[in-house]
């Protein structure tokens, strides 16, 4: 495998919170896609962390667009670029709210009509930009400003929804494994048609952990199996290296929840339910990957 390019396409630096995993992820995503890339950004933390007029930290074109419109905007842009004979990569980098809630319809449409683009959902499991309200992607039990007693609905399964559209390439990632992320973006971009990467993005501000712990929290998500790293190429699932061990020998979920203020006070029964769901998911993935 070729080494990761030294070149940075994010100039020091974004205006993200200290320890933001989005800042970190963007570095590796752009390393993988290179300078002939357009980022399409719906309303999200990224609208802000790119920098305010008249300057930006991002060294590729950034097309900011209304909250619900990222995937459809990218559809048009990709079609135009291809017709103009250009191979420019079109990457949507959207938040979880912009993906599983208000942006879902546009995403589904773009997948259905086989838009040639990469859609990355940066999932910090809440509406970060507006101060951490619940999103469809917020996990059961998590405290947000609109679920002050913990969320009562489970996290929406966007991966299954996307899977139902059969994109040629689909993967999960987390900022704590930037090399894995890099390789997945690189690979996604080799496919013609839509690819989708669901990127878990630990958020010190919203998840309420010290900003030095961003990597550790992400790693713990993988260790507990709360987040499983995999890729699905033309429908065939393969577990990614960092998740192989944890899938067989996960650490208890509480080790992950306990690191985060947003799960403070979560009742043991809920932890058990969450743990149960994770165990199920793990078994499913193992079965599907033919490793059970």
């Amino acid at each position, binding site marked *: 495998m070729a080494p990761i390019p*030294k070149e*940075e396409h*994010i*100039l*020091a*630096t*974004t*205006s*993200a919170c*200290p*320890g*933001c*995993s989005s*800042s*970190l992820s963007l*570095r590796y995503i752009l390393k993988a896609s290179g300078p002939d890339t357009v980022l399409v950004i719906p309303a999200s933390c990224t609208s802000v*962390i*790119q*920098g*305010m*007029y*008249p*300057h*930006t*930290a*991002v*060294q590729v074109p*950034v097309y900011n667009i209304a909250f619900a419109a990222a995937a459809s905007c990218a559809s048009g842009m990709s079609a135009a670029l291809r017709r103009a004979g250009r191979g420019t990569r079109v990457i949507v980098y959207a938040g979880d709210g912009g993906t599983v809630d208000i942006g879902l319809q546009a995403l589904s449409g773009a997948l259905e009509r086989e838009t040639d683009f990469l859609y990355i959902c940066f999932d910090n499991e809440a509406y970060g930009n507006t101060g951490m309200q619940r999103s469809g992607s917020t996990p059961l039990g998590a405290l947000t400003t609109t679920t002050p007693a913990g969320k009562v609905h489970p996290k929406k399964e966007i991966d299954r929804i996307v899977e139902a559209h059969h994109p040629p390439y689909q993967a999960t990632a987390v900022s704590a494994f*930037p*090399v894995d992320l890099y390789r997945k973006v690189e690979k996604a971009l080799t496919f013609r048609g839509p690819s989708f990467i669901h990127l878990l993005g630990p958020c*010190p501000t919203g998840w309420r952990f*010290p*900003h*030095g*712990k*961003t*990597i*550790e929290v992400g790693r713990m998500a993988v260790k507990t199996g709360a987040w499983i790293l995999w890729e699905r190429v033309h429908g065939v699932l393969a577990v990614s290296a960092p998740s192989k061990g944890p899938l067989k020998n996960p650490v208890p979920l509480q080790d992950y929840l306990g690191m985060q203020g947003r799960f403070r006070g979560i009742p043991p029964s809920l932890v058990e339910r969450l743990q149960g769901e994770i165990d199920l998911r793990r078994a499913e993935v193992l079965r599907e990957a033919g490793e059970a």
Partner: protein
Amino acid sequence: MTKKRERLAVSRPKKGASGKTGGWRTFRPVIDPEQCNKCGLCSLYCPEGVISEDLEIDLDFCKGCGICAEECPKKAIRMEREER
């Protein structure tokens, strides 16, 4: 020569686009070269990309998040309170 007409808001890439974000750290990372084994993990994980290959930290833009210190396998990075 007149300035080119700015029809719409377009930002240009610039180092320090968001200001010297390093200015408002509470703690600053300090690498102890004695303990460092040059594994580069701090640089890999630094969200701001301000740790160079030869392990120089650009303190103008380091936000003092402490990830490097947390992730250093040799515990070679100390977070020091900024004196102001």
